[in-house]
């Protein structure tokens, strides 16, 4: 079953603006991750936030996690044309001895206009 749900489905902004994407999930999690997918490419890990963390930064990325609302947000500041991609949140489920299974949302397609 689908865990993460991103919002909005598509976002178009001007270069230099900030982009905010949201993710909601349904069950308890150990951590939540954000991935980026450029067109025709595989997913690239951006940032991981654990369930006991509320905010995390990495360069121009800022992720927040609200476990009471079961939601997370990804903020990209000072966006660049190269940030154009689809962004997915993923939640983990420990599925057995030594395996994690990530459940991905449908993604937010971000377009940054130069």
């Amino acid at each position, binding site marked *: 079953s689908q865990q993460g749900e991103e919002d909005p489905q598509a976002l178009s902004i001007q270069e230099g603006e900030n982009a905010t994407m949201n993710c909601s999930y349904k069950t308890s999690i150990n951590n939540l*991750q954000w991935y980026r997918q450029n067109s025709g490419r595989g*997913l690239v890990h951006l940032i991981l936030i654990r369930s006991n963390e509320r905010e995390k930064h990495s360069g121009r990325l800022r992720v927040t996690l609200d476990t009471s609302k079961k939601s997370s947000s990804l903020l990209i500041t000072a966006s660049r044309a190269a940030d154009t991609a689809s962004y997915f949140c993923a939640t983990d489920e420990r599925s*057995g001895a*030594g395996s*994690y299974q990530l459940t*991905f949302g*449908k993604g937010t397609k971000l377009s940054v206009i130069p």
Partner: protein
Amino acid sequence: DTAVSQTPKYLVTQMGNDKSIKCEQNLGHDTMYWYKQDSKKFLKIMFSYNNKELIINETVPNRFSPKSPDKAHLNLHINSLELGDSAVYFCASSQVPTSGGVGTDTQYFGPGTRLTVL
């Protein structure tokens, strides 16, 4: 060097055929995965596998079978291909942390294999 590689990148085949997609990781990870991404970009786990356990998503038809000749490889074999199997298939790997051990929950993805069934 490519961390997770897949071959082929594109695969076009007729309905009813049997095909395989290969995946190799050079990261020394102990867990590998296969995902299916449909036309709406929805990414769904199919299998996760390490030397201890194969976890199969219950919605995956038994026409799909992962085969692991060694720790660095997890190939995906598909029998009797159907039109609905058309999708992009991604391989991924991770080093799953064990109690007191090292590793992260981060998964590293291959570039994908676009399968088209005619």
